[in-house]
Structures are given as structure tokens and as C-alpha cells.
């Protein structure tokens, strides 16, 4: 069976904000002072893993460990600075849902726009509007500009569009906590269904119970590096153990 995601020593460097000259004047001054050093911050360093279809990989680690950066590299948003990332199939990125929503446009138009941003075609999205708005329980507000939506409604809409597909690779970055309890249950169910449909799943979570339950394997990241990888119970226990 072919591998769905294959990361070989991937690293990603951000240039630190304080070193990035915001204006040309600052840049010129820095240049004169010979201070334009390309100081880099390695958010992810030499991470390798491979993931087969149907496998679930949990990613844990403290804040700033590089979990989200790693997810963005799988989702193709950030090209690795070093190393190689190969992803086979359609990726459904569930990272900060709703990016690209336009406040002035109706939910109807936003479903089409957001879905198209995620790589589907406008005509496919138009066919799915009914099902999406029904699932998000937003049928009555479909023609309203979303600037009048509540944050919960926006989250539901984003989640509904992002998951309205059967992807080969699903990237979930802590988005399972949207909406009220009932909606959370509903969205968990949906994620489960996507997993059972054979997608390779990468997910980031701080809820160790969820990680232990859902994953086949777990990666523990700290300061961008892999501390441990392997059996969920072992890694989670080691991570939870006070140092």
C-alpha cells in the first residue's frame, strides 16, 4: 500500500519578527549598521514520519513546540525550508477554519468561495450548499451576510464546509472544540466517519484522552524536534509524567 504522507527530515525556519525590518527606512538603517543578520527561528527541525491511509497520527507537545507549523507543512501551506514532504491524495486541512470568509457576502456565497479556496470547484460547491447548510443548522440564515453571524455560527459553517469531502489526508489542528456540546458531539462523529472512510489522519490535541483513544501512533514534539514517537499509551504517559 502506498504511503499517504511521507516527511523526511523536514525543517521550517521562520525569520524572527524583530529582525525583519518592517519599513525600508529601518532596513536601510540596519543595513548601514550591518545588522541585517538573517536570524532564524527553527519552528520544526528534522521531523520524519510516514503515514499510511487509514492510519491516525496524534501530535502532542507544549505550546510553541511546532505542532501547528508541522500541520501547515503537511497541508502544503508552508513549504519546508529543509527536507522533503510528500503527500499523496486530496488534503482536507482543518486549520483555523473559515479563513477566507468574506464578511459582506452571504453564507451561500461564502460556502462556494471557501470550498473553492480549499481546492474544490465552484460548481461542485453549489451542488453541496443545501447539504452543508443543513448539517451546520444554518438553513434559515443562508442568504444573510455573515457579518451578522455569531462566532458559533461561523465556526459551524467553517467546519461543515471543510469536512464536506472525503479526503485522502485529513489534517486536524485543534478544531474539535467548536460550537456547543451537541455540535461538538456531531463534529466528532463526522471526524470519526472520515477516519473510517480510509483517510490518513494527522491531528493535534491537548486532550490526552482523545489522543490515546484515537491515535494509532503519537509524535511528541518539543522545540520543533521529535522527542518520542510510537505507541499512543507509552508516548502519552511519558509526556504526562512530570519531568
Amino acid at each position, binding site marked *: 500500500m502506498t504511503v499517504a504522507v511521507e516527511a523526511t527530515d523536514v525543517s521550517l525556519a521562520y*525569520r524572527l519578527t524583530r529582525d525583519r525590518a518592517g519599513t525600508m527606512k529601518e532596513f536601510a538603517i540596519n543595513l548601514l549598521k550591518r545588522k541585517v543578520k538573517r536570524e532564524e527561528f527553527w519552528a520544526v527541525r528534522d521531523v520524519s514520519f510516514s503515514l499510511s491511509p487509514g492510519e491516525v497520527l496524534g501530535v502532542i507537545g507544549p505550546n510553541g513546540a511546532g505542532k501547528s507549523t508541522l500541520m501547515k507543512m503537511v497541508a502544503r*501551506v508552508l513549504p519546508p525550508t529543509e527536507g522533503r514532504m510528500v503527500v*499523496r491524495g486530496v*488534503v482536507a486541512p482543518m486549520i483555523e477554519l473559515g479563513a*477566507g470568509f468574506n464578511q459582506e457576502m452571504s453564507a451561500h456565497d461564502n460556502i462556494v468561495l471557501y470550498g473553492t479556496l480549499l481546492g474544490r*470547484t465552484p460548481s461542485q460547491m453549489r451542488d453541496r450548499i443545501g447539504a452543508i447548510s443543513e448539517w451546520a443548522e444554518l438553513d434559515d440564515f443562508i442568504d444573510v451576510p455573515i457579518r451578522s453571524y455569531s462566532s458559533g455560527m461561523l465556526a459551524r459553517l467553517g467546519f461543515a464546509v471543510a469536512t464536506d469531502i472525503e479526503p485522502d489526508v485529513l489534517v486536524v489542528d485543534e478544531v474539535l472544540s467548536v460550537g456547543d456540546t451537541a455540535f461538538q458531539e456531531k463534529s466528532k462523529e463526522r471526524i470519526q466517519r472520515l477516519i473510517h472512510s480510509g483517510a490518513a489522519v494527522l491531528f493535534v490535541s491537548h486532550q490526552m484522552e482523545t489522543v490515546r483513544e484515537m491515535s494509532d501512533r503519537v509524535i511528541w514534539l518539543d522545540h520543533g524536534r521529535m522527542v518520542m514517537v510510537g505507541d499512543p499509551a507509552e508516548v502519552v504517559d511519558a509526556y504526562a509524567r512530570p519531568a
Partner: protein
Amino acid sequence: MEAKPWLLPSTGGVVDGVSLPPRLNMTTTYVYDSDQPRRPIVTELSNLWAYRGLLKLLVTRDLTVRYKRSTLGVWWTLLNPLLTMTVLWIVFSQFFRFEMPGDVPYVAYLLSGILLITFFAQGVIATGSSIVNSASVLSKVYVPAEVFAVAASVAALVNFVISLIPLLAIQLITGVGIPWTVILVPIPAFFLLLLVAGLGLLVASAAVYFYDVLDLTAVLTQLLGYLTPTFYPISIVPERFLPLIYANPLYSYLTVFRGFIYEGAFAPTWMFGVMTGTSIVVLLTGVWVFTRSWKNLVVVL
């Protein structure tokens, strides 16, 4: 044909009253490999083709959302240049009293100039700020950044085309008429689009690193606009400044455009040369710079 070869038409459907999302065909192979080299122009063009659905949506969004809250809506596209023209017409035709050579009414001369320069200036600024403005999307979802840039350029073109309607109306009213050469107007429009896209990509790549570039661009495009005979006839320009006007490539675009839209005449051949040459060189430079910086774009954003 679907926009993405790996996304085949929905084989979803309704099961037990539940509408299923499209099931993807697993046999199609779509592979993302970060090591795959990027080929200038080829990569951009294939990205634009793959995302043409999005491109269309973005252009429509650019054109409609701007006026969403206004009562007149898209009519502002027509009204805007007409109002500018009226102001300039009052100032320069009534206060300054320019003598126009030939028998072309000043309004047609003025409006044609305003429209072309507006297309250029707004196009470059919109394209230049497109990537910075889409940062929130580009840092969360994979979309080739050039789609946003090109959408902004195309939106400026569409605006320009719509605003030709009042110009043609004025030509009819003032008795200038519409010559057959009007069907050739797409030629200067196309080359100006290339110029706008090229300069825009250049500005957009730079704006990611230095936000100031956008302000600088606004000033420079305005300056270039003044150096183009939009509201003044070239005959009033003192001889020692003429080289400056001739050196401005926009003068060639404008002369070609005016020739086609109301004079029914062809501009001198060298102007066609300047027009095509400038467009191609600028576009290639823009794409080249963009290609070199794209990898850092999102990381910096």
C-alpha cells in the same frame, strides 16, 4: 472537465436521507512533493488554470463586494470616472482653457486618458496589495498566491472595460462617433493587463517584506499618470520636457488606445513596439522575482 484532475465529479448521493459529500476517486494520483522544482511561467500558468474557478470567484468578489453596502452598487464603476472627468473638465476646459489640436472634443480626450490611467494605477496597487491582503487565507489554506494577484489585475481590467461604456456614449453624444478600430481596443487593453500584472507581482513580492512599497507605489503611479498626457494636450508641453513624455511607456499605450477608440487611426509603429516590449519585459521580470521569493512569501506573512 473539472478544475482539478484529481477531484472527480461527485459520486456521493443520498443514502438513508443523508446527503453524502463527494467521494474522491482513489485511483487518480495527485502527489504533492515539496522537492518538485518550480518552473517560472509554466508553474504559474498551470496553477492559474487549475484554480480558474477560484479566479473567477475572486474577480467577481472584487467587483461586487466593494460596493456591497452602497445603494448604487456596481453603477459606481460607471459613475466614478464620469465624476472625475467632470471635475477635470471644469478645471481644465473652463478655467485653464486648453486648446485642443484637431477636432476631438476635450471630454473624449480627457475621459479616455483618465480611464486608461485609472486602470493602470488601480490595477498595480490592487495587484500589489493582493498578497499582503490575503495573508490570513494564504497562511491557513494552500492556494497559489499568484491566483490572488492575477484576480486583482483581471478585476481592474473588467472595471476598465465596463467604464468604456460611458466613454463610447460620450463619443456618440459629442458627434465623434465610434470608428471600426474600436474592435482593436482589446490589443492595448491586453498589453496593459500584462504590464499591470507584471508590475503588480513585483510590488506584491516586495510588499511582503516592506509594507512601505505600497505607499511608494501609489505615489509613483500617480507621478507616472501626470507624466502622461491624460488631461493636457501634448502640444502644451515645453520642448525640453518632451523626451520625458516620450520616455514614459504609458504614453505609447495611451496613444494606441486613443487611436483605436475614437480617432480610428493607428499610432506610430514605434509606439506599438514600446507597448509590447514594455509589457513582455515587465511581466517576465515580475514573474521571475515572484518565483524567486514565493517560497518565503507565506513564511514571512
